């Protein structure tokens, strides 16, 4: 069919239509089998990745691997703690680098420093505000026993264990950052042995 010359380019060429038809025919001929779903492997994941463990182990793993510290630094051991937290000793290697300004977001209280009786109610309050489960590391001689103030001072609490329950004692005046890190690792071992579920209670129910 002849097309008027001004309208020649509006309609496609018959030759081009034929080429297009060939391409479609080829594609159709080659596409008889379906392409496999590239996300097929997802269905195999549950079969590959299920690990069986105990509830105790799993809970303890979560709790010991994210020990966040409440800020309770009454005296000079705090600087050793700050050093431990800094880039040289780098507590964050163990997932416990985050210092929480709010005790409600903390699991661990590192009592870095001398405690006076006047300060004691405030420390007790910080401890009470921390959510369960919570642990305490007594860092340094003052926190363990009152340290150099223990024998003579009328104003110093002779050890944090008079105020709050202590899990791990880290000796030193002040302890080196390595000692503190070791103390936290001891605490992690302690948490790993914790029993979360009373089986007998479950059975009785």
């Amino acid at each position, binding site marked *: 069919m002849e097309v008027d010359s001004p309208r020649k380019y509006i309609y496609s060429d018959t030759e081009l239509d034929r080429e297009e038809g060939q391409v479609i025919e080829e594609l159709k001929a080659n596409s008889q089998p379906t392409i496999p779903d590239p996300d097929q492997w997802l269905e195999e994941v549950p079969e590959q990745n299920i690990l069986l463990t105990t509830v105790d182990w799993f809970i303890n793993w979560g709790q010991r691997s994210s020990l966040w510290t409440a800020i309770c630094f009454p005296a000079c051991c705090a600087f050793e703690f700050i050093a431990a937290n800094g880039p040289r000793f780098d507590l964050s290697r163990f997932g416990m680098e985050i210092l929480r300004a709010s005790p409600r977001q903390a699991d661990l209280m590192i009592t870095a420093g001398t405690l006076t*009786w*006047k300060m004691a109610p405030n420390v007790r309050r910080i401890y009470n505000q921390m959510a369960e489960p919570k642990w305490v590391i007594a860092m340094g001689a003052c926190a363990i026993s009152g340290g150099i103030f223990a024998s*003579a001072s*009328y*104003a110093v609490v002779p050890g944090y264990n008079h105020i709050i329950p202590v899990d791990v004692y880290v000796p030193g005046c002040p302890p080196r950052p390595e000692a503190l890190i070791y103390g936290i690792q001891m605490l992690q071992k302690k948490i790993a042995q914790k029993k979360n579920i009373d089986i007998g209670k479950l059975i009785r129910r």
Partner: protein
Amino acid sequence: MTVALSGKEIATQIEEKFPESVVESSEKAVVVKSDSLLDVAAFLKDTPDFDFDYLNYITAVDYYDHFEVVYMLSSLEHNHSLVIKARCYDRESPSLPSVVHLWQGADFQEREIYDLMGIKFEGHPNMKRIFLWEGFPGHPLRKDFM
């Protein structure tokens, strides 16, 4: 450099103004009677030649038979300083006049002295313990505390 004024010279000038107010004087310090402490302090602060407008510190010493309260005064204008002292012989309820209305900085230091030494400062607006808690037995910086 701050010039430490001679206690003896100041003592004679104090004696002229307030007779029999000075107990003893040396080159380093003037010991004044506790009754006339306020008058002497106001005199030292307000006289233009002295102009002791700054109180460096107050502290107290226990000498077993008496307490001695030490005031170190400075003049920022003349850049000179002076130490005056006052004594309390009453061990049961020692007291001295407060200098808070002359030097505001005396506020916490007088409370500290009351807390640790048990010397009451008459006329202090808030005379109570500052470091130890209410109900603490005794005053721990006294020599006979332990």
